[in-house]
């Protein structure tokens, strides 16, 4: 299985890749690359005319210039939380690899498709944000890891952690009901807490809290109470 981003470098002028299915597989996450964003944009992989379209991000790091390639980099830059601009000090991290199945179609000089081949590859998912974002995430992860912290106080200061703490509580309740051995129970809760903290630190989206809309709840209650005009009267 190849990497679709780097697979673009395997010469395929007459083929058109089409993603037909995908599956997300979380990984532990790559290291954080830090540097000043100097340039970014769409381009053929490695700036070669015979390669497939991709997206690049150039960084000036303390170890020199570095160019990242990947179709997901555009989404990461433009849809992230901090949306960095050229000149900003940023961090870039690979957070997951998605398994994708692509259909390579080959045609002769604009004619009909002569062959279709299924290829299995990976597409890398990135988080690209200003450095301060990662510092804040590291701080939030520390809060979540701190078992001695006053949860109510922490959630008041960081409401974005509410869903994560609710998940920890749900894990504790699940463990209390389903796991008999206290050591296994502790281990389960600890692993759950660490997984969530690591995800936060990596820069992945924070889980959202779904609050019940009181007006909607009232509407539902009313509609449950009031008989509809077409309902038979008793």
């Amino acid at each position: 299985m190849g990497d679709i981003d780097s697979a673009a470098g395997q010469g395929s002028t007459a083929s058109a890749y089409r993603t037909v299915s995908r599956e997300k597989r979380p990984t532990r996450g790559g290291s954080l690359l830090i540097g000043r964003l100097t340039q970014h944009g769409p381009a053929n992989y490695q700036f070669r005319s015979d390669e497939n379209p991709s997206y690049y991000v150039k960084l000036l790091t303390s170890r020199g210039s570095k160019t990242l390639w990947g179709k997901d980099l555009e989404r990461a830059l433009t849809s992230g939380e901090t949306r960095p601009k050229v000149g900003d000090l940023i961090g870039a991290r690979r957070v997951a690899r998605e398994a994708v199945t692509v259909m390579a179609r080959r045609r002769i000089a604009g004619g009909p498709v002569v062959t279709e081949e299924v290829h299995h590859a990976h597409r890398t998912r990135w988080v690209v944000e200003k450095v301060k974002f990662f510092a804040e995430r590291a701080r939030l992860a520390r809060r979540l890891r701190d078992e001695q912290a006053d949860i109510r106080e922490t959630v008041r200061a960081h409401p974005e952690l509410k869903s994560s703490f609710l998940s920890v509580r749900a894990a504790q309740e699940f463990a209390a009901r389903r796991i008999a051995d206290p050591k296994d129970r502790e281990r389960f809760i600890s692993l759950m807490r660490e997984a969530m903290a690591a995800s936060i630190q990596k820069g992945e989206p924070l889980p959202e809290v779904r609050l019940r809309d009181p007006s909607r709840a009232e509407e539902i209650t009313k509609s449950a109470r009031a008989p509809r005009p077409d309902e038979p009267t008793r």
Partner: protein
Amino acid sequence: MNAAFPRPKSDAILADPGTSAWLKSALESAANRDPIEALNDALVLAATLEERLRRELDLG
């Protein structure tokens, strides 16, 4: 393609009111040094500062 960050020129940086006093001072003192040694030191400095940033902000 987005506009590239311009390659910095020493004079422009020194004239820019937004440049920190620390950077101006470093540039001025580097101007009198051997350019190879100055760049070599600057790269060590950059790597050291990055290390400090990672440590203090817990960036791993």
